[in-house]
């Protein structure tokens, strides 16, 4: 009940306080001459947002960076020991290897499927229905997606009726059932497929929007000139869509590097499916190794940094066009 009151206060109160804050500062600003007002006002309007950004993103990022050079309780400095651990421990190296698998396969498959579907739905009348179907998984949680795919991958010992569709198909053809998830050979691939199922809709929506921007007349002109569908795709659609593909691929690479929920829910890193984000959580909560956890987070950030720079550069180019 207390929580209900608190929530109500927060939902109504915070916007009200912010509105009050802005109106109050306007009153106070009236004291100043107009020129001074225009100089001070932006900072007053920015203050709440900048404060949140600083407290929840900038300051902790710096803190984590410092912690990564300290011991397990963030006490004494230990030099590069945590990084030596990260790049020396077989467990963490396994996680890095899996992150690379995620990066390559997850990115390739989401962009590939997304592009194929975007191009195909452009040619049919049930475009919006088809898009909705592919897009649905993005609206549900990774936890729910994990449970959904546990039923797809379900495994019963050979000889018993299979409850999972995949193994039911395999055994119909006479093969032995496979435990897809609890299996060091197939585990990571099984999890990546769950990720692809979730994120393909995202790639499709952006690529489809890019595709609609290519003029139909241009494609028609090429066809009239005798280009077949492959040529139209290869020499017109693909080059024109390249900037959009780059954007989607960037986002997918970042998603792959940050993969956490699916792994946490489906295997918690067992069966050789560990990834950096889950390993960091383990170091933090299972082993109470703050220094090592911080070092893993910093490595994750360093892997993402080039993409961040690419993002900023792209943003600057867009701004130049405004």
């Amino acid at each position: 009940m207390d929580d209900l009151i608190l929530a109500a206060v927060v939902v109504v109160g915070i916007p009200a306080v912010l509105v009050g804050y802005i109106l109050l500062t306007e009153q106070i600003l009236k004291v100043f001459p107009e020129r001074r007002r225009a100089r001070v006002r932006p900072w007053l309007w920015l203050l709440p947002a900048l404060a949140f950004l600083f407290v929840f993103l900038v300051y902790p990022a710096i803190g984590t960076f410092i912690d990564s050079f300290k011991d397990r309780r963030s006490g004494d400095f230990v030099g590069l020991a945590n990084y030596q651990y990260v790049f020396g421990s077989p467990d963490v190296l396994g996680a890095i290897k899996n992150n690379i698998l995620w990066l390559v396969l997850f990115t390739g498959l989401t962009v590939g499927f997304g592009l194929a579907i975007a191009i195909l739905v452009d040619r049919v009348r049930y475009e919006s229905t088809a898009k909705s179907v592919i897009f649905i998984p993005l609206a549900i949680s990774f936890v729910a997606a994990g449970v959904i795919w546990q039923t797809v991958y379900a495994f019963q010992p050979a000889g018993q009726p299979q409850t999972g569709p995949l193994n039911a198909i395999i055994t119909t053809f006479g093969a032995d059932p496979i435990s897809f998830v609890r299996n060091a050979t197939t585990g990571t691939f099984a999890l990546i497929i769950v990720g692809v199922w979730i994120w393909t809709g995202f790639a499709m929506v952006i690529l489809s929007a890019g595709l609609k921007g290519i003029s139909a007349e241009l494609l028609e002109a090429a066809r009239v000139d005798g280009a077949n569908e492959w040529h139209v795709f290869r020499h017109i659609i693909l080059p024109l869509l390249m900037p959009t593909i780059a954007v989607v691929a960037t986002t997918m690479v970042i998603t792959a590097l940050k993969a956490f929920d699916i792994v946490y829910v489906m295997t918690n890193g067992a069966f050789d499916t560990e990834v950096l984000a889950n390993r960091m959580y383990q170091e933090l909560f299972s082993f109470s190794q703050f220094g090592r956890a911080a070092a893993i987070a910093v490595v994750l950030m360093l892997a993402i940094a080039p993409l961040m720079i690419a993002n900023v550069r792209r943003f600057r180019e867009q701004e130049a066009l405004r």
Partner: protein
Amino acid sequence: MSAVTPPVTQPIAQRRGGLGRFRRSSWTTHLVLVALMLLWLVPTVGLLVNSFRERADANSSGWWTAILPPYEFTLSNYEAVLGQSGLADAFVNSLFITIPATIIPIAVASFAAYAFAWMDFPFKNALFVLVVGLLVVPLQLTLIPILRLFGPNGLDIGGSFLAVWLAHTGYGLPFALYLLRNYMGGLPKEVFESASIDGASQATAFFRLALPMSVPAIASLAIFQFLFTWNDLLVSLIYIGTNIENQPLTLKVANLVNSLGGNVHLLTAAAFVTMALPLVVFFALQRYFVRGITGGAVKG
């Protein structure tokens, strides 16, 4: 996580193409597309069917055997997970977390976005580039210092709703700022110029013009942030953790996956409880959701 997307000039709904676009569809196109749609739908259908089956049935045969008569479906799994497993309480907790965690960042971001779009100040571009950079910072990089800040030696709000509201506000802000600033910046300049000539203050211009005109962007953002916080596992896992009273659905179901293990009939029902609201929101407001993704930025 997010990326900067190129501006999309045309709304998706429009320009579904003249006949020229459809002429290229052949039976292979339809075959491939229908196969892909089935591939994407079947896993969820399997979950839904299993969630209505008796324990013995779900553990001894595939869900596809249940879609043919005789129909033997039951609601008992839902009774069990909502009652004994505490998912009804977790559902309420999810609402408690999600609604403020959606409203606060939008409120905080809208003023700053207006300042970025329509005011002049030194370091404006540098500051906004920082926001664009922060879009992709992995949350992992912030966990330890924030845990300490929320802990007994700091604000002492670990495990509370307040902790999650604050964290979601901070984490959601870069995207909110980015989307709103781009949208507000795209509003017609003349409107603000003539308002200024008529003697309207910046506050009036913001409340009477910028805010009402930005409703579509705010709607997209609200749906995005709502789905993001509703589906979030990591933030709740870290800042609510073992405080059972405040655990949202995602956290509860993630724990059930461990404790219920082979009880497919219960797990599937539990998963569907977490999906119900996002699915309703998605189908009702799909247009805004898609616009949020394509309208300049993306986040996951």
